[in-house]
């Protein structure tokens, strides 16, 4: 079958401590996959390893069957992996539109861009609509509300049009309304993009996803459809500490 991303016995160490421990993971094209796990289970580190922020001490990361293990961030991004951070990271001093103009990076070389002027494209407009920021397109991004900022960063990733999107807790700090809005933004992407989400909020997870991977102590604990996972003894076991999976 056609895997966009396949991770082979990946290990990431921080001075001896194995944040990710010989992990295997396959994600099919067009799939929306959620990774859950208690704090410190290694979810974010996994994202870091994929996007090049953390370097793998062992194992392989294959993206469209190319080995991208320990490539520099920008090459991974160019290869077609976009990432949204847990704490939204955007260009506060640029307007939303300018943020997207920067994000629109089919041609990232300097000399090429010296001879281009920033321009709007249909795609930028589409994304602005999708994330509902058309109104505030020309405000400095720093002025946006927290929720808007989350969407806006998501938008930046979309403008890039990556084959694989990594979302690190996209609903962190959102109201219920905002969360559901985020959910249907993500659902609208389903099929067009492959999406890997790290999330705590099970309600949200149910609303967007088919398959869940559970991580614990850097290892894969379980993998399967939502219902199955929710009744999985080992998972419940692992989650006791954090008061049951429902509210994790």
């Amino acid at each position, binding site marked *: 079958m056609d895997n966009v991303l396949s991770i082979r016995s990946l290990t990431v160490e921080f001075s001896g401590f194995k944040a990710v421990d010989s992990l295997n993971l396959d994600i099919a094209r067009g799939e929306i996959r959620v990774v859950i796990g208690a704090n410190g289970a290694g979810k974010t580190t996994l994202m870091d390893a994929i*996007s090049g*922020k953390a370097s793998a001490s062992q194992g392989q990361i294959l993206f469209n069957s190319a080995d991208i293990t320990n490539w*520099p*961030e*920008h*090459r991974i*991004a*160019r290869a077609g992996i*976009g*990432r949204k951070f847990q704490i939204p*990271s*955007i*260009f*506060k*001093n*640029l*307007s939303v539109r*300018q*943020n997207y*103009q*920067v*994000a629109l*990076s089919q041609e*990232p*070389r*300097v*000399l090429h*861009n*010296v*001879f*281009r*002027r*920033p*321009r709007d494209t249909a795609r930028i407009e589409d994304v602005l609509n999708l994330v509902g920021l058309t109104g505030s397109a*020309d405000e400095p991004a720093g002025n946006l509300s927290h929720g808007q900022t989350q969407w806006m960063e998501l938008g*930046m990733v979309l403008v*890039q049009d990556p084959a694989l999107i990594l979302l690190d807790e996209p609903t962190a700090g959102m109201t219920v309304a905002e969360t559901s809005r985020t959910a249907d933004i993500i659902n609208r992407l389903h099929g067009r993009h492959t999406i890997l989400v790290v999330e705590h909020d099970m309600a949200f997870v149910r609303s967007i996803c088919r398959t869940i991977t559970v991580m614990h102590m850097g290892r894969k604990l379980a993998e399967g459809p939502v219902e199955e996972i929710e009744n999985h003894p080992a998972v419940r076991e692992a989650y006791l500490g954090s008061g049951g999976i429902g509210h994790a």
Partner: protein
Amino acid sequence: MKPRVAMGVGSVLLIALALVLPAMLGALWLNRVAQFMTYGILGVAMAIAWGYAGILNLGQGLYFGIGAYMLAMSLKLAAPGSLEGGTPMPIPDFMLWNAAPGAPQDLCCITSGSFLWIPFQREWFGVLMGVVVPAVVALGIGYTMFRARVSGVYVAIITLALALLARLVLIDAQPVTNGFNGLTSLSFFSIGGITFDPYQPRTYYLVVGVLALSLVLAQWLVSSRAGLILQAIRDDENRTRYLGYNVASYQVFFFVVSAVLAGTAGMLYVVTAQFASPTFLDVAFSLSMVVWAAVGGRNSVVGACLGAIGLSVLSSAASETPALLNAWQLVLGAIFIGAVLFLPRGLAGVFNDLLRRHAAPDTSRAASAPLAASGARATIPGQ
């Protein structure tokens, strides 16, 4: 559309002023303003590196100095003061008294390293090197620095140390550079049969021309897509990386551009002041460049440029006012502090706010586009 109009009018006025100035000024201020305009180019260089790229170069004097020396070497060889000056085999006078007794009297080997001067017998070569060498040096240091992801104050310290190092070597290599005394008694700069006497309007116009050119170039660069990406990098390096940009290459590119501008400024300074000195590499000089940019507006090429010219005029005027003979440095110090405290974004910042306010009635979209292209980024709180 109001800002647009103001800009149009303003620029026309400014250009007009620059053109008619020679008629209003005597030889002294003509030459002096020309010199200050070379500082203006330095201001532009600072704005690009510091304001837009967030690279604080505390050793900008290095590139200014290199530019100055490269051209000065050519002008020295052409000078009648040098032995056989202007002939096929000139030797800079100072090399004679730095030569070992009985050394062959030929540029090739009168002193160790004197051969480096040989190609500079052609003036165009000096000019070329005045651009190329700063570029190459900046490329080298920039590449090593930014690939190692050195940033912020660490960049400042490296550039600073580098300038000090270069200064040391320059002074120590007396047989080739005439050490601390620098290069003087040069010939006039002349290119294509046109000679530039520093006190003639012609020279003034040369400087004005280059200044205008570098302003246009800088403005064009920062309003290009690359310029936008550069500001993105300044805001958040990592974000830009995850969007697929090779941050280092952008930083290096603009670092080099800034260095080239500084080198050009150095050359023009030699044309107008007729000497090159290792003191061009002093920390104090590089720091004053930073101050120019800060006061004028670090995030606006035009602001920084005017800041440089304005402060230079101010300080020379102040120091020449008998009443202030002892106090002028107190005044300058106070001005720096005041500017930093009350105008964190420099004068350009203030102007932009005003324009913003006046443009508000119109749709903010119309206003923000051209502003974004011009010095509007001055609305960014200083990093």
